[in-house]
């Protein structure tokens, strides 16, 4: 996955992501694609969660999955989640759960709870930082005011790092793929460098959902695992999702 939160010169916040999934889950030789990635595409839906006929939040989801991987609380915050791979992974959390240790929270349930019940950027951030989890993750959170944007690097137990937007200090965007920001990404899977290069080339004065879509359409940020691209703009409550295809000479991940 690749998630980006960016702030334009007027302080408006944009949040977008490529949802990549299906690595090593069967390769279709005939169509040169990942089997699960292709099969997930018809399951992608935009969900408008309503109470009293009013939108509480919207998400881009797989039908049948009750957790959230991308969502927007209009006017308040946006949230995406990227996978974080670790030996201390979710399978340990599941074993602990089965054995009776149930003080951690399932990833998708936490993101769903935050989107459903969160009332502010700061409250959402606090919950994502402090809640004990079954699996490690990156939470990418955007707000509705200048400086409200961050990448939270989570182990199962704690927040290892919080990388905040600071447009005045030169950090007008944050990009997260599937690697800790203080470590170099795997040489064979460096989507971070091209994403940052394209964001820098775009420049803050030109940032918008269309120009972020350009970044997310550039290989290898767009790759054989990319299921869909989601674009969100919190102040207007705008959320758009598009199914993607990477054909021809494309990175397999």
């Amino acid at each position, binding site marked *: 996955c690749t998630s980006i939160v960016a702030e334009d010169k007027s302080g408006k916040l944009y949040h977008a992501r490529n949802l990549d999934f299906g690595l090593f889950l069967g390769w279709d030789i005939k169509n040169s694609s990942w089997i699960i990635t292709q099969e997930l595409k018809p399951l992608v839906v935009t969900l408008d969660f309503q109470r009293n006929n009013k939108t509480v939040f919207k998400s881009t989801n797989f039908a049948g999955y009750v957790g959230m991987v991308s969502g927007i609380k209009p006017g308040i915050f946006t949230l995406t989640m990227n996978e974080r791979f670790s030996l201390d992974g979710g399978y340990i959390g599941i074993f602990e759960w089965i054995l009776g240790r149930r003080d951690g929270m399932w990833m998708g349930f936490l993101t769903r709870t935050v989107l*459903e019940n969160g009332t502010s950027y700061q409250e959402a951030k606090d919950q994502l930082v402090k809640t004990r989890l079954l699996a490690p993750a990156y939470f990418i959170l955007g707000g509705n005011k200048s400086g409200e944007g961050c990448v939270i690097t989570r182990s199962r137990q704690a927040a290892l790092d919080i990388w905040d937007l600071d447009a005045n200090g030169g950090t007008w965007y944050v990009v997260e793929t599937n690697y800790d920001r203080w470590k170099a990404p795997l040489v064979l899977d460096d989507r971070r460098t091209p994403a940052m290069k394209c964001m820098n080339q775009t420049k803050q004065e030109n940032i918008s959902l269309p120009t972020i879509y350009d970044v997310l359409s550039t290989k290898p940020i767009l790759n054989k695992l990319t299921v869909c691209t989601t674009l969100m703009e919190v102040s207007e409550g705008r959320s758009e999702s598009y199914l993607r295809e990477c054909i021809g000479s494309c990175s397999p991940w």
Partner: protein
Amino acid sequence: VLAEDPFGEDCRSKTYPPAGPTFKGTVPTYIINLDLPPSRRWDKLLSDKKIELKTVIQSIKNIANAFVPSGKAVEIVDTKLVRLISTLPYPFNEELKGIANASGIPLGEIVLFNIFYEIFTV
């Protein structure tokens, strides 16, 4: 750096609105009514998407069978994972039961689909 990546390319521009070979389609929108009981919230969506969901879950089971040819992995999904449902918090436990009912897919397989993220972080 991009030049060194065999799959890299120059930064794209003017790709929006989405069109062309990298765009595979738009995404349908569904309303999930939180005023309904959790077991009924997903009925319409799963009525429309049950075939696609069955296809994905069958592929996951096929892959599991390839790794564990004895069929033990799939047996665990069908018999053990279903027991996990009683330990999951409300309203998610009820929603998963509702999805299983609406789609006709065994509950253990719906649980598997919903804990996929946790499993694949290793």
